[in-house]
């Protein structure tokens, strides 16, 4: 075996160990709830807990609305910047990166000051309005990931020529975006959607301070008070994450292909 190949294997094994050992340890620990034998008791407790179901469903619904809002804001914006205002790209990229440096707690305190029950716009005293504010806040948090994913997708197609080809055939802006641009960046949008989903499912700060029955606060509560269940929950979350990624891979098989990137 050549020296280069040997070291490549060493690096690969170290990397795999770094990734798999904590995972195996967590799985092993999650199965030790019953004294002396391995069992799925921790998983049964977690999945059977009505609070798990309600908080998880709440977060899934919020995630879906956040994805819809993100797509509605980001796709037309990224498209327009690429088509007509390329000189504004650095500015928009900077704005979309802001949520990475401004902590979520700043947005929540902003919300409480702006929309608290004593303010002129007391949205936080209403459940529906609070949920809407949470979705808007999450859309802002997911902006860096969604924008980058969509912008990368737009880079792979000739936005200007496709737009002009559709326009000269009689299409208006709505048709161009819905029937030409969006279907051709669908995989990029799905990647952004997945990242948004991952952020929303585990988010704690905003949901907790706005007192929403979300999965993040439930997770935190469980970690603080139980031993084996959090490990089981981590594995469940891991499976959901990999499930989502596999789904993207499956969907990408049906994605439009261009002459430049067949298959």
């Amino acid at each position, binding site marked *: 075996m050549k020296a280069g190949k040997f070291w490549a294997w060493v690096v690969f094994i170290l990397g795999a160990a770094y990734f798999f050992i904590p995972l195996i340890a967590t799985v092993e620990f999650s199965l030790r709830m019953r004294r002396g034998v391995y069992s799925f008791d921790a998983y049964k407790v977690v999945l059977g807990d009505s609070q798990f179901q309600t908080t998880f469903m709440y977060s899934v619904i919020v995630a879906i609305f956040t994805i819809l809002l993100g797509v509605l804001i980001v796709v037309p914006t990224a498209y327009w910047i690429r088509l007509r205002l390329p000189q504004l790209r650095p500015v928009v990229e900077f704005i979309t990166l802001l949520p990475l440096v401004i902590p979520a707690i700043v947005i929540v305190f902003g919300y409480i000051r702006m929309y608290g029950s004593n303010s002129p716009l007391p949205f936080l005293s209403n459940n529906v309005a609070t949920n809407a504010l949470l979705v808007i806040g999450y859309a802002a948090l997911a902006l860096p990931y969604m924008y980058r994913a969509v912008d990368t997708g737009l880079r792979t*197609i*000739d936005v200007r*020529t*496709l737009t*002009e*080809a*559709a*326009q*000269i*055939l*009689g*299409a*208006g802006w709505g*048709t161009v975006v819905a*029937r*030409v641009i969006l*279907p*051709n960046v669908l995989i990029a949008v799905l990647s952004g959607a997945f990242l948004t989903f991952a952020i929303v499912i585990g988010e704690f700060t905003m949901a907790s301070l706005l007192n929403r029955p979300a999965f993040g606060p439930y997770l935190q509560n469980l970690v603080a008070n139980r031993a084996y269940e959090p490990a089981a929950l981590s594995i469940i979350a891991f499976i959901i994450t990999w499930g989502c990624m596999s789904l993207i891979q499956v969907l990408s098989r049906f994605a*439009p*292909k*261009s*002459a*430049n*990137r*067949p298959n």
Partner: protein
Amino acid sequence: MADPFLSIQHVRKSFGATTVVQDFNLDVEPGEFVSFLGPSGCGKTTVLRMVAGFEEPSAGKIVVGGKDITRLKPNQRNVGMVFQAYALFPNLTVAQNIAFGLKVGGMAKADADRRVAEMLDMIKLPQMADRYPYQLSGGQQQRIALARAIAPKPKLLLLDEPLSALDAKVRVSLREEIRSIQKKLGITTIFVTHDQEEALSISDRIAVMYGGKAEQVGTPFEIYNRPATKFVANFVGTLNVLEGKVTDASTGKVQVDTQEVSLKGKLNGSKSGDTLSLALRPEAISLARQPGHDTSLSGEIAEVHFLGSVIRVRVGIGGNTVSLDTFNNSTTPPPVVGDKADISFSSGDMLVLH
């Protein structure tokens, strides 16, 4: 003469301080095939894009079928366009691509399906309906793009260098196909190209453009044989340009190097002592004196290139070099570099460039 179908009147286009099209005028008859020919950056695509509605003229007017369309949006103009990069929608099949304009226009599905089948037959690709663009060759993609542009029955067809991305053989067959479809449908067409052979072979008329202006508009025969300016003469076809000095304007005597030629009636007001550029097409020149040729010049063979069926010979005449082609003859050896040679031509074939 019938009213023009497309009339481009005093159109100017500036991007900031740069004017890319200046005072462009052109009338196109119904069913006519007009090519915009010129080098990169001459403004030909900008004029086409203004007709399509993708650029708004800084000044001037564009009229189609008697209606001023200068300020109309591209989707309101009923114009078809084929792009250099095909621009087929990658997410749609061939049939869906062709049907796109029909569906946007609100055509019923059964009618649209019938029209798509008709278009696929027209471009001889009926078996490709369910393929995706990435499964087609460049030539097939461009034929689909042509069918897509024609399907909604546009008033005007714009072709923006549609053959540039294709290989030489496909270019020739596709340009003939485009011309035959255009003639069959009688659709008024503007074709942008930088390839003179393409423009000469398929156009009813050519507008040769340079520096944002139309240098000359005419039939391919006129453009080639009677170029109006030095640029047109140089850009279209191969041209030999000889520098000459008028020695006697009254008799039309012009001195080329140390030899004299007679150009009576062609000097257009030039005075004795003026310097002129004289142009000759290679096919008008013969090596050695030929019957019917009234003018000859002596020189020396400078280069000989054997190209198979033809031999390209370059003859030095003082400071000028003249290029000409002779047919290969298996019984006669090609000329030898350094030999003395006479070239002859008819003075009527010599153009005085301004």
